[in-house]
């Protein structure tokens, strides 16, 4: 029983990270109906930026917030410069651009920082809390995720800018008519998504270590999480994240073994897409022919 509880708690911790990245995917999907294949690599790039700062002697938390700002700017610039020209292009062109972005970020990071695996510090103490069930980092990661979620909720619910962003995503034409600059709102959405991704990257790096390919698996779980929850529903993405985290850990530890953990994500993704493409909480769309 102890072992199960341990796995569930560990699953909640990684689930929080998946939830953050899934939230980043949902943010971009909501405003553009695109799935960002480069989300993981953007997070990885931001995490390397944090590593450079910390190595240069900046204390953890200032480095953390500087990285969030850096990721935000990175997201805005990528939307403005690279995504904008293919906004209305065929799906294949958009997918190709996302994949190109993934490859470029991955190789540039490898070029600058080499492919050797680096340790990444955690801001939380090393000793376990809650008895032996959970490390402080896992508890901290859950805490950080919840803070990010609350901050986002407050931003979208209570600020005029948040309202404008929601309007631009829901109905671009009408939003434009009332004077919202829809193009910039999209860029802002990308910036926010990149910033959330950056947080996820910094939280997962102490667990998986820093390496240009570290986000490959995480991105897959985040896709699964976003789809399970419904890809247009932020709350659903968070629920999906925690669910996928727990499933992955419990199944990996007791049922199928660690090697097949990624297959859980594959099965979830294909299963959800085939059986219920709108996920648990997504809107069902009916297309008129």
């Amino acid at each position, binding site marked *: 029983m102890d072992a199960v509880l341990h796995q569930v708690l560990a699953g909640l911790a990684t689930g929080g990270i998946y939830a953050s990245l899934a939230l980043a995917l949902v943010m971009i999907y909501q405003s553009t109906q695109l799935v960002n294949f480069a989300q993981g690599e953007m997070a990885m790039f931001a995490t390397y930026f944090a590593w450079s700062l910390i190595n240069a002697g900046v204390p953890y938390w200032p480095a953390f917030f500087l990285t969030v700002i850096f990721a935000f700017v990175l997201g805005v610039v990528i939307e403005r410069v690279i995504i904008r020209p293919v906004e209305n292009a065929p799906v294949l062109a958009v997918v190709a651009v996302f994949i190109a972005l993934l*490859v470029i970020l991955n190789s540039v990071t490898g*070029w600058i920082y080499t492919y050797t695996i680096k340790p990444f510090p955690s801001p939380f103490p090393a000793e376990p809390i809650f008895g032996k069930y959970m490390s402080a980092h896992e508890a901290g990661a859950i805490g950080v995720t919840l803070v990010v979620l609350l901050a986002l909720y407050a931003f979208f619910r209570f600020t005029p800018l948040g309202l404008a962003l929601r309007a631009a995503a829901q109905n671009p034409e009408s939003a434009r008519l009332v004077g919202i600059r829809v193009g910039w709102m999209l860029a802002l959405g990308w910036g926010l998504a990149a910033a959330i991704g950056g947080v996820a990257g910094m939280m997962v790096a102490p667990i998986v270590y820093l390496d240009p390919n570290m986000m490959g698996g995480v991105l897959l779980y985040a896709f699964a999480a976003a*789809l399970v929850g419904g890809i247009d529903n932020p709350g659903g993405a968070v629920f999906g994240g925690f669910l996928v985290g727990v499933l992955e850990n419990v199944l990996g530890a007791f049922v199928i073994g660690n090697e097949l953990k990624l297959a859980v994500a594959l099965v979830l993704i294909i299963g959800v897409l085939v059986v219920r493409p709108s996920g648990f909480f997504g809107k069902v769309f009916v297309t008129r022919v």
Partner: protein
Amino acid sequence: MTRRQLIPIAVLLLVACALPLLVSDYRVFQFNLVLVYAIALLGLNLLTGYNGQISLGHGAFYAIGAYCAAILMDKYGVPYWATLPVAGAVCLLAGFLFGLPALRLEGLYLALATFALGVSLPSLLKYHHLEKWTGGVQGIVIAKPEPPAFFSSMGLTINPDQWLYYFTLAVAIVMFLLAWNILRGRIGRAMVAIRDQHIAAEAMGVNTAMVKSLAFGVSAMYTGVAGALGAIAIQYVAPDSFNIFLSIVFLVGIVIGGLASISGAIYGALFIQFVPNIADDISRAAPWAIFGIFLIGFVYLMPMGIAGAVRMGLARMQRKAQNK
């Protein structure tokens, strides 16, 4: 086929046949891989270029083909040439089965599902219950096929690299002819019709579900045969050589070579084989950076790829010649 189309093909074949006699063994090996990639790209192009179904996971079918060949040769002593039909058949079935759920997915979602397949495949290949056959993380080493004794009895000297090149060339020619025949026939037109206007195609009586799953199966078969040929040429298979980046290389190949173009597969294969070779001198990351930049560049500036540019250039030259 008109005479104007036949001449460049004849020249290309002549060059391809003469090549092993002119260049070093290592180059022969590289050109062998170009042919392998050309078959794989042709397969992906049948699906993505002609049928409009995006696959970011074709590395998986390449891997299945490669493992089929390696396991049959290593564990069951099957001769290398006999592994190709098996690899093709297994991948045809695997692709067809994957194509069935893929029917319900369009555009981005299909890309997502195949991306998941590509990312998770290496870990499936490492699965320890399959280790008996797959060799786990270590992979499988296979012997290099010797040229048949027929040549030495004729008094001709031919080394294994050259022999393998000619063998791959023969397979490639058959595969290209087959693709050309599929595409100009009823099924090929149905594939293109589904890509451009799937509702209209269905109204015209095209069995969309069947054609789409068949396209997936045939495409996987091409890539699987290429995988088997690649494994025989490299003489080694291991899970980590079939990661998501292999699938991405294929995508780069068809976009740069030219979508919905048979000759594009050859341009794309040359690009993905030789550009990394040149760029490797700069840095280990350089080939990937170049792939990424070229991919974006082609999407923005030359969406028809090299094949499209060649076609346009030829048409312009022709117009000039007529105006004179």
